[in-house]
């Protein structure tokens, strides 16, 4: 009996140390934006980065325009999802260089997802998590969802857009 009690006390003391979790702070790992990278395939069918110049990127769900007559060619960017609804639609107007010529394109993506709310604390407010992101509609040549989790800690882009 004494042996059980002594062992129990040792267990209690040691477990107590590990039960002291650090209180959370306001730094959430969840983000509200989708990250994109633009790629194409070379002659060996290997993925290579494709630089794109966006004339405009916007969503009909907001008056904000995410890109407008941007003169830079880029291969990665990010766009915010709407927390108001469970879907967000984006229209892309962009141009790429094809054999020295500039070719203009217009494409659309509609994302669907679920939102999960969590009270972080009265001080930190609400932390919203976007989960299960998918495309309900898209007109790009090809597209891969690399990662449907929107978190700051994920280094890979969420979406790869294939542009040929």
């Amino acid at each position, binding site marked *: 009996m004494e042996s059980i009690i002594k062992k129990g006390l040792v267990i209690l003391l040691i477990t107590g140390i*590990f039960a002291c979790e650090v209180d959370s702070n306001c730094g959430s790992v969840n983000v509200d934006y989708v990250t994109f990278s633009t790629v194409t395939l070379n002659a060996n069918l290997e993925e290579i980065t494709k630089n794109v110049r966006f004339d405009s990127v916007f969503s009909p*769900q907001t008056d904000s325009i995410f890109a407008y007559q941007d003169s830079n060619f880029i291969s990665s960017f990010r766009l915010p999802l709407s927390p108001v609804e469970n879907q967000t639609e984006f229209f892309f107007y962009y141009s790429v260089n094809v054999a020295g010529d500039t070719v203009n394109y217009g494409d659309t993506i509609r994302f669907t997802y679920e939102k999960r*709310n969590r009270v972080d604390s009265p001080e930190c*407010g*609400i932390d919203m998590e976007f989960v299960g992101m998918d495309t309900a509609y898209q007109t790009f040549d090809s597209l891969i969802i690399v990662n449907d989790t929107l978190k700051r800690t994920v280094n890979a882009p969420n979406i790869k857009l294939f542009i040929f």
Partner: protein
Amino acid sequence: MRLILSCLFFSIISISLFGQVPNSSANTDSTEQRIVEPERPKVPKSFFIPTGLRIGTDLVALGVNAFGDNRQRYEFQADVDFHRIYLIGSYGVNQYQTSGEEFEYTNNGNYFRIGLEADFLKFDPDHNTLTFGLRYARANYSESLTTDILSPIYGPYQENLNNEAVSARWFEMTTGLRVMVLKNLYMGYTFRIQLNRRIFNATEFRSYDIPGFGRAEFKNRWTFNYYLTYRIPWKEKNVMERSR
């Protein structure tokens, strides 16, 4: 992972601590005469008949109710003795609300704990106890979250989210002290390590507060209660006599 590591760690320590028992025969000289320890007196079966019921309430909860704004909690506890083992149970009701700039949260529910405690004090006839115990605990509750958020890009939006029938369970390791301050009136604390919390049926948003446990974001945590209890005796307690 942390729990597994801690289990491994304390197992190693326990083995090393309690492996040093004197009756280990590995080092004894074969010529040495073995000392026969006197047989321990057996505890009569009549000692295991319960001698009374102790009921009480958590004073920490009453203090929080009196001095805090957000929580109303009442907890009642009862235990019954079987010699040096106590069957112990507690039941509590909890209401909690909090708000921030962009939300209001309310929680309403109840919880219970049930378990056993082993008493260290062998020879105390007054039911003063110094115990180590284990508990199973479960909470049933509902919670609601109302948000009013302004997205800088997509504008303002409101949501009303309800987790209607949430339940949670966890385990507890406890140690506690009860001391008789007046005839049949006891006061004492219970220190609890709450482990392996699981939540069921939180469908609309992530649970924030669990009655009897606290912040739901933690899987393991510790807490402290201070009880005032009254013992209703129906039989004198039998204790073993000291050998010397």
